[in-house]
């Protein structure tokens, strides 16, 4: 059964000065999907996410959300429905973990609004889910990279988003934290129907978690489709210019990738 279309991009183009970053990108995102955006460095993954979540305006083309143009919603509506986890944050001031996660409730509060007990409950649950409860009172500037990234994820989840964007959010994490984080996101995706759009570098993780893949190359959509169809040797060789072999794993039933570099 096909889910309803949640977001669409129509012929997006974006230029940084004269350099094209996105060219003729047309996509549709269905509700509850786990989408992977894959592509080499500089292929436009971050730019695409920034445009889709309303942070950057495209030079031409439109982003539709529930059939309406994204620009026609006000900032608050967008902030209550979309959340972005960036690759890394530099926070220079000694906010506590609790304060940072609480910032995720900002779009739900008035300007001078004080967080209610319900807001605090949500913040608590998000911190618990992300495993950062133990250092709720710790200062963010004293945390390790992995700890900080989980705090930032908790902050994004505290927005209680309908769509969660991950902008290479797991790139700086070690393998176990990476799996924990992606498992957590997958659970949210499966249980609460949060739509996930994730720019990922690690193709094995993409094969494991994504239902649907969008390959970008030099700002254009090189290929898109369900993981079972487009996660294959030919596409990856074309987009990334590397030799690989992809097999369905006997136990997990997921797709695994082995690199076949020419080592001679």
């Amino acid at each position, binding site marked *: 059964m096909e889910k309803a279309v949640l977001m669409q991009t129509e012929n997006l183009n974006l230029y940084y000065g004269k350099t094209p970053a996105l060219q003729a990108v047309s996509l549709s995102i269905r509700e509850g999907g786990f989408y992977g955006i894959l592509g080499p460095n500089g292929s436009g993954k971050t730019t695409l996410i920034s445009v889709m979540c309303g942070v950057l305006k495209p030079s031409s083309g439109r982003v539709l959300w529930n059939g309406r143009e994204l620009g026609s919603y006000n900032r608050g509506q967008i902030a209550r429905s979309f959340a972005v986890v960036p690759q890394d944050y530099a926070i220079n001031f000694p906010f506590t973990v609790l304060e940072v996660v609480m910032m995720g409730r900002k779009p739900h509060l008035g300007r001078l609004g004080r967080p209610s*007990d319900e807001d605090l409950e949500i913040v608590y649950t998000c911190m618990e889910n992300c495993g950062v409860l133990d250092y709720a*009172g710790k200062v963010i500037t004293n945390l390790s990279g992995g700890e900080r990234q989980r705090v930032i994820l908790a902050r994004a989840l505290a927005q209680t988003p309908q769509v969660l964007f991950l902008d290479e959010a797991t790139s700086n994490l070690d393998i176990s934290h990476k799996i924990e984080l992606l498992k957590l996101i997958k659970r949210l995706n499966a249980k609460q129907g949060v739509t996930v759009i994730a720019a990922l570098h690690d193709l094995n993780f993409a094969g494991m978690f994504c239902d649907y893949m969008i390959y970008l190359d030099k700002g254009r959509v090189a290929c898109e489709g369900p993981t079972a169809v487009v996660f294959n040797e030919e596409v990856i060789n074309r987009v990334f210019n590397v030799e690989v072999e992809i097999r369905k794993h006997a136990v997990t039933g997921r797709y695994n990738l082995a690199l076949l570099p020419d080592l001679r």
Partner: protein
Amino acid sequence: MRREIILAHREKEKQRLLVLLLLILLLVAGCLIFTSLGVIKLPPWEIARIILTSITSNGSTPAGIDEIHRAIILDIRLPRILAAVLVGAGLATAGAVFQGLLMNPLADPYTLGISTGAAFGATLAMFFGIFLPGGLGLLTVPLLAFAGALLALGAVYGLAVVNGTMAVTNLILSGVIVSAILSAAISFLKSLAGEGVGSIVFWLMGSFASRGWHHVFLCLPVVLAGLVICCYYADDLNILSLGSKSARQLGVDDSKVITILLVTSSLVTAACVSISGIIGFVGLIVPHLMRMLVGPDHRFLIPVSALGGALLLVGADTIARNLLAAEIPVGVLTTLLGGPFFCYIFRIKAKRQIF
């Protein structure tokens, strides 16, 4: 556990409110005590009585109050005390906002060259002996200083904006450049000033000597309005410390908020500098001290810094006018006394973080 975290958060909110209230009380009490000190000493309650009766009765001296005492308090000491309160509050507020906006704990109200602009304006007024007509004569130096600050501000922003966008690093760099040029111009004027160099040098060091009500009324509206605006956008400033992009994603109109806060805190700085001269240290250190006390949440940090700055500067000015027979420039005093104190605090904090 769940309950505990919520309770702990509520407790922290309460504590910060308590600090705020405590500082307000301290400032009011401090002002009364500081006003009572001087060559003629009067008890603080006498000061309170003089002030209260002067509000209720208009013009005439009520029974039981010495006319000369009343004049000393109302015409000489009180405006000076209030000027120090305003400048302290303004500089500390602007410092907290600049540090938050530039995401740099080393920033202060003078980073963008506003003070140098003001100094240049004041130097011009003194060097050429300009005297504004139309009853503004007494305000010539402050008004020219304010104009100089605005010109410097315009030049810095003009330099920093490239293709309609403004990067923070550009802003700091433009501030340094404009400031350097104006400093050289001031030095040039000083070298030509001959005998008159004394008044220029003294102004540059910062002082509240012989500041009257006209100075207070020049500064008051700008500082008060600035404080209200900065508090109104304080929560946005918190979110901005996650970076512009994340702030935008959280629904903050980042470029609007940055522009409003930059212009506001620059105007506050300009108003302060134009009546007091250049008083260092308050704008840099008070936000730091207060951040140690109440944390980095700007909703508390800004008002608490304003109160702390006011208290520090009015205290310093009281020492400056009473310690020696001759007046010590308060800008020198704040740094001489505050600097070592801050070194001490800094060492304690640095040690705690390491071990």
